[in-house]
């Protein structure tokens, strides 16, 4: 059997708490993006398009949606006899109690057996929460050409932004001599994208040694500085294309809105680098005679009887007659009732909005409970939520759960207020 050259480990266990209610029931890689996709589809599709057909997905926080979404990997052609996709959740081990994944490198450390069983020469470490297209095989060529122990994909950011990232200080050949995590006074603008290629035996050794020192072993904090200190060969691999971190409500909304431009920077319409997703049932999309759609993405199975402008609509959404949706993101299986007006909102999946609802009006008052998360005017409605008819909802609001008219004081939810209806478990 041919030896596996490179195996990929995709870190998909993080919550992404700055996405607020969107990640309350699912890990960040499971959040919808660009209409029909989920965030994890981008790195997964990059893997298969780069010829990396053995992928371990490390899950921890709320994995149900990811497990359902990925299954045995059919949409990504990752249903393989040899390799393919494997979901790797934290697990108990003989003689000791089970442990959570306490850090990025610790998660890989706990799955050394999985990697050894596949016996790769190189291991690609990815995180499941960025939007980009990248040919990892080119990065591997670079890694081999420079005889690296580690190659770190980097993005050139502005000097002002640099202090928010892990920064690589490199010589004129892009050989890294120093790594600084979120430096106050950055010396370079090469920001780590959290994408690494390691020569497996070098990484294996480092993981085992570091685990003896740090119980929460992390690539940025421990493994990279350790390997640099030991005089290993580390190179920065410059990535010049589109790459988006969608970590906050505002950046998530912005990245979606960029896709509706006439010529978006990020092109989903290429034939030779397709993004795959779970979509076995692919009905067409219908726009009715009362409908009007402009500057928007509309996914499979939607029925549009109302007006949609500057919005991204996921699969199987129904927008009833007279409803107006502007500058919003509506996720799969939602229904927007007759004559409701939705402005600059994000509505998570399976949510039913009643008739004559007005959403996203009023002053821009930051959310009272979580002002750091909801402060740019975008109102966010959680998944599986019901919004009763005839209510008005302001800006920076959060509504989640089966809300009823009585939950709305005088049919109005002022800007910055929240309604969270806990599910009653009988």
């Amino acid at each position, binding site marked *: 059997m041919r030896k596996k050259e490179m195996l990929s480990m995709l870190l998909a266990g993080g919550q992404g708490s700055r996405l607020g209610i969107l990640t309350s029931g699912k890990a960040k890689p499971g959040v919808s993006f660009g209409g029909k996709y989920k965030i994890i589809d981008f790195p997964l599709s990059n893997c298969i398009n780069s010829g990396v057909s053995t992928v371990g997905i490390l899950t921890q926080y709320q994995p149900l949606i990811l497990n359902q979404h990925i299954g045995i990997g059919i949409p990504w052609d990752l249903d393989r006899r040899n390799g393919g996709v494997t979901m790797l959740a934290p697990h108990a081990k003989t003689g000791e109690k089970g442990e959570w994944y306490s850090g990025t490198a610790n998660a890989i450390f706990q799955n050394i057996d999985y990697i050894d069983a596949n016996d790769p020469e190189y291991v690609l470490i990815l995180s499941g929460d960025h939007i980009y297209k990248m040919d990892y095989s080119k990065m591997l060529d670079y890694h081999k050409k420079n005889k690296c122990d580690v190659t770190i994909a980097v993005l050139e950011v502005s000097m002002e932004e640099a202090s928010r990232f892990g920064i690589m200080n490199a010589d004129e050949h892009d050989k890294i001599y120093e790594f600084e995590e979120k430096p106050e006074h950055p010396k370079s603008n090469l920001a780590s994208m959290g994408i690494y290629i390691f020569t497996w035996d070098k990484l294996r050794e480092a993981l085992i040694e570091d685990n003896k020192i740090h119980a929460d072993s992390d690539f940025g904090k421990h493994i990279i500085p350790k390997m640099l200190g030991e005089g290993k060969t580390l190179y920065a691999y410059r990535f010049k294309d589109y790459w988006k971190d969608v970590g906050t409500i505002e950046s998530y909304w912005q990245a979606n809105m960029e896709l509706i431009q006439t010529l978006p920077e990020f092109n989903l319409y290429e034939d030779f680098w397709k993004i795959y997703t779970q979509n076995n049932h692919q009905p067409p999309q219908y726009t009715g005679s009362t*409908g009007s759609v402009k500057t928007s993405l509309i996914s499979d199975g939607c029925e549009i009887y109302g007006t949609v402008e500057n919005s991204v609509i996921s699969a199987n959404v129904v927008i009833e007659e007279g409803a107006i949706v502007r500058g919003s993101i509506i996720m799969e299986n939602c229904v927007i009732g007759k004559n409701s007006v939705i402005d600059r909102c994000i509505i998570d999946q399976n949510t039913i909005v009643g008739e004559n609802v007005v959403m996203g009006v009023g002053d821009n008052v930051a959310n009272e409970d979580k002002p750091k998360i909801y402060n740019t005017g975008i109102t966010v409605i959680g998944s599986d939520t019901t919004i009763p008819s005839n209510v008005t909802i302001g800006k920076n609001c959060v509504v989640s759960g089966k809300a009823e008219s009585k939950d709305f004081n005088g049919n109005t939810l002022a800007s910055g207020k929240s309604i969270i209806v806990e599910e009653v478990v009988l």
Partner: protein
Amino acid sequence: MKAIGLILAGGQSDRLKELCDVRATAAMPVGSSYRAIDFTLSNMSNSGINKVAVITQYNSRSLHDHLSSAKWWDLGRKQGGLFVFTPFLSKDNSYWFRGTADSIYQNITFLKRSNEPYVIITGGDTIYKMDYQDIINYHIDKNADITIVCKDIKNTDMDPHDFGILECDENMRMTDFEEKPVDTPASTLASLGIYVIKRTLLIKLLETINAEDRYDFVRDIITRYRKKLKIFGYCFDGYWKTINSITNYFNANMDFLNRDVRNIFIKEKPYIETKPKDEPPAKYNSGAEVKNALIGSGSIINGYVSNSVLFRKVFASDGSSINKSIIMEGSTIGKDCNIEYAIIDKEVVISDGKNVIGQPDNPIVISKGTVL
């Protein structure tokens, strides 16, 4: 009850003209994202029939492409699964399929090696949703030799002269059968070409008629044995459309603009499955004006589209107007074009300013790959 499915997808239809030059009717694109055979294949797997043979002959490349994997219909199985049969040369046979019965006879090993008691035989080019288990149960209840699914075409636009017409007694036992009658038909029960028969009986009949050099299922089994066998009619009153002519094909697609029809095939479970193409969502740009239309994924719309069915990856430029038309996958409509009553096949390019206008009762057809 366990059954095997036989889909006879070998046919072409001269009445579909250029559209069938490049594909079998079973591979005709329908309803913006399907091919005709998806409906029958999905009916099979949705009815719990896990062993299905598709028999092809005419122009089967695009059908083979579509059936390249059985997993989309949940037919990628060790027990059963999807079989695709084409004519082949052997020591004692060098014929093409000489008829529908012959196409099954030439694959009789498939029937003999199976152990499912019943066989359901259908075509592959009609649009309907049906639970075949209901027919098998009916077949068992009636203790029938053969059950023919039929439809009462009174008050429909279906022409009785295009169908086999059943005469049945009050128990639905068939008393007579006439294929495509020239005179006024004796009844309004039209055969839909869907049959249930016991596997062992089918093997026996096929061997008998083959020995007599007879090759047609309808002529040499149904018509010839109409009095000898216990044949029953099973009335189906759901949506059923054939796509055997340009007009029928056009109308069947336009039916998908009707919410009730979409509910049957798109909204209500069980779903009709097709081979995924992984196109991004449909993109409406600022000049888009879409009224009463189906838009396939991956399409980019800049102009006016109404009362039309657009398949995947259609590009409609600004200033163009598309009305009452079908535009298949990958076609490009240039600027300031006027398209009306047209069926535009795959990968066609209509240059800027060109008009393509057909008649309401006779849509114009632009063949695959044309650059106009």
